């Protein structure tokens, strides 16, 4: 597939078994390139929100949105408008610490990036960092110079800016 830009779509779905499977399956079957998918609760207990980042050109993105919309358990799909939404990702990064100099360097970087140290041992530090994917990438690149032992990223979750929301017509 031709490389396009990264797009974020927000999908409200029925909160029931099988829905994640059918959406994930759709992406595989249609050969759409999924970068990340996060699923979680909304203010309605029977509705879940999926935030999907896809790398696609305009034509493919149009197909992605339409095909997702067509799924029976999908209540609403919205393509989040570039620059008009907020998004966050969380990453946990475990860094190897070989001496106290390295330890204080890592702690300094964590403070600059407003991360949090959530675990520490004689030879490792685990950092929690949230932000946009760019910030996390930048921080991660710094940490790689120390030696990343393990990494877990959640993938992004997002909402549009302002009072606007995805409305469900009952």
């Amino acid at each position, binding site marked *: 597939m031709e490389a396009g830009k990264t797009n974020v779509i927000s999908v409200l779905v029925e909160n029931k078994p099988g829905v994640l499977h059918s959406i994930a399956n759709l992406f595989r079957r249609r050969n759409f390139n999924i970068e990340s998918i996060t699923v979680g609760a909304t203010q309605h207990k029977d509705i879940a929100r999926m935030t999907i980042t896809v790398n696609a050109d305009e*034509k493919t993105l149009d197909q992605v949105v339409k095909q997702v919309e067509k799924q*029976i358990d999908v209540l609403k799909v919205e393509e989040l408008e570039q620059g008009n939404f907020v998004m966050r990702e969380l990453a946990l990064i475990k860094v190897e610490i070989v001496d106290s100099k390295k330890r204080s360097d890592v702690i300094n970087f964590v403070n600059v990036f407003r991360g949090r140290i959530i675990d520490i041992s004689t030879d490792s530090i685990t950092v929690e960092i949230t932000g946009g994917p760019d910030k996390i990438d930048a921080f991660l690149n710094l940490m790689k110079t120390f030696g990343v032992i393990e990494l877990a990223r959640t993938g992004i979750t997002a909402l549009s800016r302002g009072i606007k929301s995805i409305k469900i017509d009952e």
Partner: protein
Amino acid sequence: MPKMSGAQALLESLEQQKVDTIFGILGGAILPVYDALSNNKKIRHILARHEQCAAHEAEGYARASGRVGVCMATSGPGATNLVTGIANAYMDSSPIIALTGQIPTCGVNSSYMIGRDAFQEADILGITTAITKYNYQPQTVMEIPQMVTNAFYIATTGRPGPVLIDLPKNVQLNIAEIKFTNKPNIRSYKLPQSPNPIKINQAAELLTKSQRPIILAGGGVITAGASDEIVQMSDLLMAPVTTTFMGKGAFPENHPLSLGSIGMHGNPTANRLISEADVLLAVGTRFSDRATTNLDTFAQDAKKIQIDIDAAEINKNIEVDISLIADAKETLKMLLAATSKKLQKGEGKTWTKRVKEAKEQLSPMLKDNPRDMTPKALLSELRKLLPQNGIITTEVGQNQMWSALYLQALQPRTFISSGGLGTMGFGFPAAIGAKVACPNRPVVDIAGDGSFIMSEQELACSITEDIPVIVIVLNNSVLGMVAQWQRTLYDRRYSAINLGKTPDFVKLAEAYGAQGIRTESIDKFKKAIKTAINSKITTVIDVPINPEIDVVPFVPPGYGLPQQRGDY
């Protein structure tokens, strides 16, 4: 509220949906439903001899009648055998309901439970996610009526498709007070609204100004029952009509403005004229690769208007100028009204002349030698002997493409074939299903020897269930279509295409108690057809043909529609 088992609730719900037939095969995990079926007077069960054929039979029933076809199988292998049939219905947007038995969700023996790899367990919900419009698995008896109502609603509305209901055995057996409902309740399922009147006007404007309009009718026209509107639109604009393969029958092919089907093995007239048109009105078509052959050159001079009920079909393959996302019949009615207001009479004479001239020059029927045992001659004779409402099904391969080229379909729902998935072995069980739906009309399966043996065991079903159909085996002792590809595209390097002179189709038919006739001349063929139409049992007509006959003309892969090859 009545108290009953899940199995009884299922049958009662099916009756409320006016189901009169189920095609199926039983097994352990679906036994409670078959037990309930044993004293049911309203639903006829037809015992298929392979679950795949049960699904094809349900689809044949659905496509001949416009109603929902229902098939049923047990868990595990029964369910997985349905898969090809379900995939076929999904690709061709046919409304079928597949019912499968399943291992219990809980029970006395906890090793006989979903998720424990129990005997005959298969995750059929997971397996069919990509090939069903939706699938269900009730966890309690009480859910069954609403689920069945929803399943039928989903299968038949919008763009139709298969829906599967997987029934855990304990849910079939449990007894509860059941509340029935015929009101679907799916808040997340929305159907397209009425077409946008502004776009209707734009489309009417475009059609009115067109000098060389052409209409492309797809399978969606048949689904929507919009054939009359296509005929009216054609008459109003003096526009020729071509169909996709799936749209065959949407427009009477003996109409002077009919061009036949477009596509890789399409009618040369249609393939040529679609490239000359200035406006294309496409209705209920997904612009498949076999219809368009090359997306860049497809109807390249035409402004395009697309009517489809599935929004995802707009701009999927072909970019269009005006899209109307709604029911085809309703949309065409509005478009007819808007267009007839704007249209001046007596326009488009040159185009009509060109259409007539192209049909005279390019028709595949011209060089007909009526005495040769060629598919062209055989199928022309069949058309003459078959009533207008006779139903034709086909297998897949050369038999299918010859049928598309040489057998005119005159009414909607009289040409039933596996268009999208291209399933060999589809035609015979589909014919059985069609015959059950339309018992008073002759049903003919145009088969090849390779395809027919893939579902030949359904002869047993047709005999024991008393469903007489006609099978014409165009017998060339090879897998003809792939042989043709090896001949033309692989420089005659034949590989694995020989079927040999086996079986003897006359003896095969007789072994099952059917009638077998071998015909070696056109006259004998005509006689055999007459005999078969009047026969009360299934008849297999074995017609030996020359294995070197190609389906021509043919658009080689990558070429545009008018670049057809082959001397026809």
